[in-house]
């Protein structure tokens, strides 16, 4: 399931990240923030008003805000 579709407060694990679809800068910062396959992730909040964008997610013990467009490149699996 793509990260932008992950239900809130649902713990999941990153399966793959489609690095090719992201601009260099974004994939670079994403890696620096620790986004990697195998990492546990949780969607916490969705953006304001009717946009529901950007998205706040928990990765490790850190909260990161990212746009849904970037989140769509991150494929995760809901952990049992």
């Amino acid at each position, binding site marked *: 399931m793509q990260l932008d579709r992950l239900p809130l407060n649902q713990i999941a694990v990153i399966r793959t990240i489609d690095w090719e679809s992201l*601009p260099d*800068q*974004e994939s*670079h*910062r*994403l*890696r*620096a*923030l*620790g986004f*990697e396959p195998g*990492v546990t992730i949780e969607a*916490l*909040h*969705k*953006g*304001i*008003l009717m*946009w*529901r*964008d*950007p998205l*706040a997610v*928990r*990765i*490790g*013990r*850190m*909260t*990161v*805000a*990212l*746009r849904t*467009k*970037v989140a769509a490149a991150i494929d995760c699996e809901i952990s049992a």
Partner: protein
Amino acid sequence: MTQMPPLVALVGNPNAGKSALFNALTGARQKIANYPGVTVERKSGRVMFADGRPVEMIDLPGAYSLDPDSLDEAVTRDVVLGNLAGHRRPDALVIVLDAGNLDNHLRFALELIAQGLPTVVALNMIDLAERDGLRLDAQALARALGVPVIETVAVRRRGLEPLMAQLDQILKAPRSVTDPVASSFGAQNQRARDIARAAIISETAGRQWTRRLDAILLHPVGGVVILLSLLFLMFQAVYGWSEAPIGWIESGFALLSDGIKNVMPDGLLRSFFTDGVIAGVGSVVVFLPQILILFLFILLLEASGYMTRAAFVMDRMMAAVGLSGHSFIPLLSSFACAIPGIMATRTIMDQKERLATILIAPLMTCSARLPVYTVIIGAFIPASTVGPGIGLQGLVLFGLYIAGILGAMLAAAVIQRFVTRSRTSSFLIEMPRYQWPRPGDIAINLWQRAWVFLRRAGTIIFAATVILWALLSFPKAPDGSNVSQVEYSVAGRIADGLEPIVRPIGFNHDIALALIPAMAAREVAVSALATVYAIDAADEDAAATSLGPKLAADWSLATALAFLAWFVFAPQCISTIAVTRRETNGWKWPIFMVSYLFALAYAAAGITYWTARSFGL
């Protein structure tokens, strides 16, 4: 030659508590300058070892890796690697780690340790980590990293002595690098997570506080309401709380001016001091209270961790014009003054977005426009009410702010579409834990802001003021001439040349003349008009009171409105142009900025004037 004290750099991820540790170690004895060749601020301070030997500490900009995404990060890399020309390489590093965020922060620590410099790790904010249900084994971490690890709580000054002692030891016995770190990000991340896992003794689900607060502050509707209320409160405070201190500063300068008038004979030198130096520098220093109040709010928002949430809330709206939440913070600062606003754009990752933000920052209504607005509104807009509690004058002022914001949004959309040709903006940011701002850190920061501002007033503004005074004072009008000194001066003659250009937008000769000194600082337009109308006023406020009726008698309403419209857009204030040149490394962008803003101002004033005329005003 005396031997230089060893240089120690504090380095770490953003939000690791690096600056708090730096403040705790160095106290208020800090020096701010720029790194050679770049405009990134360099904070340094001197710390003593137990036996009194000094060590120079620098606080490097927060970074996520040595492979930079932003200007700030590039400086951190260059200093750590010793590649910054004109800056010596540190003799040792203190890596500041957020104890509550080891899995994410250790990767950068591994990268830094691999550089081979003597290194100590400060396991910072250990108390917050414990509060969040995390227990760590510092010894295990030290073994895994191969460098000493000291637990610190910077804000409570815990662990500072052991840190200094350890630093002393590693400086004496440099370590050898035996453990090159795997090169790929993925491998580093994996290793970082393994080490973090080994160092964690026990953990429970953490950050409950932050999650609960975020549920309110990032609420899809509530979050917007809270942000707007905060901004409203902030502007109320900027104008409400500053009245008294502004009064004190004005009386102070008036006293000084009177004092000089009493001890010096009338003449050129006295005019230089009272009309030139004191009036000019004083008219700028008067804004110190407003700027400090605004900075107080901004610092509090930043230190509490709320600022990134504000960026989160604003991101989607900024995206509509090709910007992102990253631009929100610099633009907010620009309401105080565009200069710190433009400098704050350095944290924006995307260089096109950064450029667009710099170019529109002068459209945010800075505090220097306020005296101009106040005088004109007071003179031309009746103090009637249009609704319960809503005055017409206040409404017009509000409208001028909105006009600036809308102008900025429009300009951003056009610039991103046609000038920088940026296809997408990006928003990707770590949101730190909430914490109580520490008064000491805020105070140090405010003091630094005040100092930077006053230094600017004492140099750039002082110089500009002296030049303008000279332009207005020379050549001397012959005795008995019926031409006033101002008209006869170089500035007056320039105004003659300017007049035909501004005549079509409803400006008269006096306005043309006032526009010249207003280039130094917008608010000078007020005192310049006052001078032109030959009113003997020591400062703007006194000028304003007597200037109002004079203007109301002399100008048409259409001219007054055009004058206001001009000031919404005009790129006045040479300092802003100078800082734009510095931040964009050349004249291309400041020239572009000045041209488009003048064009906008001219068009806006013209449209306002002719529309008003067609309504018979």
